């Protein structure tokens, strides 16, 4: 590997699921790169394709439904999409390791911790059992499990959730992989334990120069953990930037929405949370325009027909894919201004989100007024200003009452 080649280079990855209800367009041409020792966050709500992207990397998509239908995954000079199963097996665990969301179900209930750890080590390295056991003890020590010699004989159900996740991390680190993929590693854990596990993950990958892909729906988790962040929506990367840039200058309407739906400690008093209205799109249809358009307050007419590509913020700048100087890129036709970002809504006087063309779903409500307070109240106020007070009684059925805004995004996404 030359110094300039990235450790991992994913190019135009396309993943589809064939189901009885039709084809799910799970990942739609995702491109990203990762350097040795770099930590990348993949952020997005449930079903946006972030987990599928990573399962596809090591070809663990649920079979037979899931298929990689395009793109390349270059890891350490090898295209993982072209490898034979036995070649891949040698890479899994040794070079690329994965940690899953639910530590409660990620360990085999009928085998002791020792059996599972020794097995993982011996699957890749010829070594006597005693040595593998010694290595297991060393690893358990490393992840902070007290009395590892005795704990080795325990079964998974005798560990708490946090302890099990530590065991999973120990197993993933057993062979000093070059890349670790952590799929929502702390979602199933208590908040206090979350911080401990994240810190452990950061310190250990730091020490071993292991690159990390951290998948999460929690922006708070990635903020302190990662060097760079890819924001994903409906199987597309919609914004890509260094962590610093992304939080300093969140630019995609979706990212702006995400940040505004999290309570902040430094917020002005009584500053309302602004939810992203509506639901993620139905992935059974390839979007014709921007996938976020139905929920976007900044959308233009073109947004309904043309899916924007991921381009540098400042047009014409050369794209740097990795490292601290990575280019801030965004896929958007109508970027929120700096003031918009602060307010969480378009402030341009008289701006209205472009109405949905016939047949398209509109989650925001056509003719959403710019420069007014948001959500339901905002609309009511706007209508009142034009037509006088409205009654909220059911008898006012003739009035075009806007749909109840769905407070889906309180910073943490919920599985539907």
């Amino acid at each position, binding site marked *: 590997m030359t110094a300039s080649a990235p450790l991992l280079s994913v190019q135009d990855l396309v993943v589809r699921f064939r189901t009885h209800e039709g084809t799910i367009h799970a990942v739609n041409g995702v491109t990203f790169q990762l350097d040795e020792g770099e930590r990348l966050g993949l952020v997005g709500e449930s079903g946006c394709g972030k987990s599928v992207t990573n399962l596809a990397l090591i070809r663990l998509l*649920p079979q037979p439904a899931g298929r990689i239908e395009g793109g390349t995954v270059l890891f350490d000079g090898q295209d993982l999409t072209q490898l034979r199963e*036995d070649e891949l097996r040698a890479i*899994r665990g040794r070079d690329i390791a994965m940690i*899953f969301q639910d530590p409660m179900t990620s360990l085999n*209930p009928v085998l002791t911790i020792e059996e599972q750890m020794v097995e993982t080590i011996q*699957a890749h390295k010829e070594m006597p059992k005693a040595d593998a056991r010694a290595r297991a003890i060393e690893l358990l020590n490393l992840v902070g499990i007290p009395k590892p010699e005795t704990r080795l004989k325990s079964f998974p159900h005798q560990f708490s959730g946090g302890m099990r996740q530590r065991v999973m991390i120990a197993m993933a680190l057993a062979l000093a992989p070059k890349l670790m993929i952590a799929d929502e590693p702390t979602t199933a854990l208590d908040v206090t334990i979350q911080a401990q596990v994240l810190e452990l993950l950061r310190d250990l990958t730091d020490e071993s120069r292991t690159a990390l892909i951290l998948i999460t729906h929690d922006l708070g988790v990635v903020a302190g953990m990662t060097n760079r962040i890819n924001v994903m929506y409906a199987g597309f990367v919609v914004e890509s930037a260094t962590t610093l840039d992304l939080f300093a200058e969140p630019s995609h309407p979706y990212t702006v929405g995400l940040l505004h739906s999290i309570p902040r400690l430094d917020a002005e008093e009584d500053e309302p949370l602004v939810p992203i209205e509506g639901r993620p799109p139905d992935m059974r249809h390839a979007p014709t325009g921007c996938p976020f358009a139905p929920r976007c307050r900044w959308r233009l007419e073109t947004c309904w027909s043309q899916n924007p590509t991921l381009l540098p913020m400042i047009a014409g700048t050369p794209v740097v894919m990795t490292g601290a100087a990575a280019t801030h890129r965004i896929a958007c036709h109508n970027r929120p201004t700096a003031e918009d970002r602060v307010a969480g809504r378009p402030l341009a006087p008289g701006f209205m989100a472009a109405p949905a063309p016939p047949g398209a779903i509109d989650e925001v409500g056509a003719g959403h007024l710019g420069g007014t307070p948001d959500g339901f109240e905002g609309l009511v106020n706007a209508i009142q200003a034009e037509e006088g007070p409205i009654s909220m009684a059911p008898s006012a059925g003739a009035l075009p009452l806007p749909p109840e805004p769905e407070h889906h995004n309180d910073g943490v996404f919920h599985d539907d």
Partner: protein
Amino acid sequence: MTTPAIPVAIQSDARASRGLWGDAVRRLVRNRPALLGLFFIAVFVLAAIFAPFLAPYPPNEGSLVNRLQTPSREHIMGTDLQGRDEFSRILYGAQVSLVAGVSSVVVGVLIGGTIGALAGGIGGKVDSVLMRVVDVMLSIPGILLAIGIVAWLDRGLPQIIFAVAIVNVPIFARILRGSLLSLRESDYVTASRSLGASGSRLLLRHMLPNSLTPLIVACTLALATAIIDVAGLGFLGLGPPDPRTPEWGTMLTDSTKFLRQAPWLLFFPGAAIVISAIGFNLLGDGMRESLDPRMRR
């Protein structure tokens, strides 16, 4: 499988590692019907093992002078047409039932388990073909299939065992395949795959051990039906070729000719069949409850 998360420090030493099986045994012991089943099975198995010591008379010796005697102090279950002691014959009959029942289930589980493991472990076309074969086997009523096999292979204890085993094959195959299929998508199997475990290793070390519990329960329940099937074949005149062999089903058939004079000859073999079958049924149900994590109390 969700077990309550017990703080590690408290739990580590005090409650020693009992594991899945330890917990299951504890729950089983608290299950009254299962204990009753275990008692019936114990009686049945001990009778079979110690028949030579417990039987007051040899099973095939009797004098015509003593024929068709009612139960008495000398012959607690009476005597049959040849004057043989019914109690002794029941005890020796337990041997035949136990051997035939257990071996037919073992053979059945080996064949059915292999089919199920191949179907569930490999999947794809192998799965489709094997499962269609199993469907065909399932479409023939069990006892009819057994009769056909014995008629085809000629009478004899090994043939009976084989016939009853074949009847059970589709059941075992389906159970094992089903649990393997669900385990294939389980988190820890995906996790092991992500850590580089090979296909055979996943199947043998991770999936099979976890799919054994439903199979063990099925085996226990199958023992009950196997005993009934063996007796059924005997009752239909397809029992062991040597007519002197004390086989419960055959004894039942023989007794029907003297139903009026000697009803006890019908009662005792019938009761023996029922008690041993109920024993395995109760134990099987109890094991299902104690091994099923969803039924944990």
